[in-house]
């Protein structure tokens, strides 16, 4: 279930009255305004909206990369906006997997080593880490490229390594920030296939930010973000349907 009216309860992700303001020069910019969102486990949500509408900011707040100006972010019962830096980092390691548009792999590490990075923060043994990494790389179809460096991989393969890195620690939530934005259609489709599979087979809760309507259609729920507010869209992608503001 996905709700944008702030009336849900007990959802995996609960955003309440979320405000985010940035100060640029002397000017204060409202990026998110009183945003509410409830998302249950296993949902696949796509966020669309014009540039600067706050999609990435929203993703960062859900992932604990940034703090809201006001409001609360509660995920799996933890109010993460109140966690300290050290605890928030540990929480992120346990619950969140990130997939970026530009892959963000460490260039001096092989695919295997890149995927292993999140596991270095755990107490897993070397053998256990190897098992997890191989499974993750196998899932994205890159078992035969595990000792390649990022520069030796195509863009699509790099993004698959990034997906493997995001899922290797078995996070609760996957946050994907335009994961196909830098790829051709064929490679993009491959990435979307993997993300869809993670949703359907592995029941991951996925938030996808995209400008691509084709990518957005893979999601079970499409939300439109504009001027700091969320609008829930119909399956055919029409935006002006239900607004979170209705109940306010």
């Amino acid at each position, binding site marked *: 279930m996905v709700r944008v009216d702030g009336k849900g309860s007990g959802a995996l992700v609960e955003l309440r009255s979320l405000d985010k303001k940035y100060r640029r020069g002397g000017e204060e910019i409202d990026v998110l305004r009183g945003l509410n969102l409830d998302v249950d486990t296993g949902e696949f949500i796509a966020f669309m909206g014009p540039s600067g509408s706050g999609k990435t900011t929203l993703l960062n707040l859900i992932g604990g990369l*940034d703090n809201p100006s006001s409001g609360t972010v509660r995920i799996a019962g933890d109010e993460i906006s109140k966690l300290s830096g050290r605890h928030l980092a540990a929480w*992120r390691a346990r619950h969140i997997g990130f997939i970026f548009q530009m892959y963000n792999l460490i260039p001096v590490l092989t695919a295997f080593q890149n995927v292993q990075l999140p596991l270095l923060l755990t107490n897993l043994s070397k053998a256990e880490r190897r098992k997890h990494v191989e499974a993750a790389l196998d899932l994205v179809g890159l078992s035969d490229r595990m000792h390649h460096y990022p520069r030796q991989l195509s863009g699509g393969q790099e993004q698959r390594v990034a997906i493997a890195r995001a899922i290797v*620690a078995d996070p609760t939530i996957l946050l994907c920030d335009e994961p196909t934005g830098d790829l051709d259609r064929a490679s993009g489709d491959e990435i979307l296939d993997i993300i869809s599979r993670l949703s359907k087979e592995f029941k991951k809760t996925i938030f996808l930010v995209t400008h691509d309507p084709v990518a957005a259609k893979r999601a079970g729920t499409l939300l439109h973000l504009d001027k700091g507010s969320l609008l829930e869209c119909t399956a055919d992608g029409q935006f002006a349907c239900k607004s979170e503001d209705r109940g306010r």
Partner: protein
Amino acid sequence: MKFLHLIVLNLRRKKTRTALTIGSFLIALFLFGILMTIKTALGSGVDVAGADRLVVRNRVSLIQPLPFAYRERILQVPHVRDVTFATWFGGYYQDMKNFFPNFAIDVEAYRRVFPEYKFTDEEWRGFVEDREGCVISPPLAKKFGWKIGDRIPLEATIWGGTWEFNVRAIYETDRKEFTSPELWFHYDYLDERRTFFKGLVGWYTVKVDDPANAVEVAGAIDERFANSPWESKTETEKAFAAGFANQIGNIRLLILSIGSVVFFTLLLVTGNTMASAVRERTGELGVLKTIGMNDQTVLFLVMAESIIVAAIGGGAGLALAKLFTLRGDPTGGMLPNFYLASRSLALGFALAIAAGAAAGVIPALGAMRLKIVDALRRV
């Protein structure tokens, strides 16, 4: 040490830059090692000085002598247990480059006052009984291949002519600081043959009954010879040795000055390198934080990089300095105890690590405080 691999790989990203930074540590610590070796060599007398020994010298300067007759008068001072004396000879073997310290000594009391030098009774007796006999140190014996029974000619720079000596004893000692190349011979032999300064000695060494009485004894001796043509200056053996070393300048200040400049430059160079490295990897640091690495671990990664560079460069520099000093005194006798002490090695390595840590701390704090959203924007 799960992240060691990542740290090493980061250092290998810009091989030239890393090599140059390591090189600057290497040169700095090599220089440090050599300076410390020189300091140790010049100050070796200071380190071996006995706490219960005083040195009485001419108040005007060390090269001015004192009357032989002072010996008895010093012995009369309360708390003085023994007195011996020596005079600088300043001879060299065959060529000036073969210069080494050599003294005319008071054969009767010298062994009693300096018990750290060990002899067999037979060798000592042989020395005492031979007016032209001499004692040499093991390094001197090794340097010229001399052995007991050899006859050695020395050219005298002060007293003139060639003086010949018979090697009668080679002392032994447990302490490396005592083993400088040196030669002692009979004061009587010197005084009999020289044409000037007869009846005068270079300096007295006084053994007191208790180190606690040293100040009182020093005052009493100087008071005894005050207002005489040969006024004395009595000081602890340590102060005397330090004064001797400082004749060529304030070594400690010199080393401190050079060392401070080098280390300050090193801090700037390494700090700049680490700041560049962190700046270039801002996005990656953001990714590491995103996947759950906490701020303290990020701080540790950057600090570790800086410290590893310092350890490699500093270690290599000190190792080179050690190798250099293993060849012995490069001055041909001016710095007899030319060796890099373990204590200096440890101090040098600790300083290198400290410099590495200090150079890395500001970039590391910057990396630690980096906000993830800001870092990711720079990818």
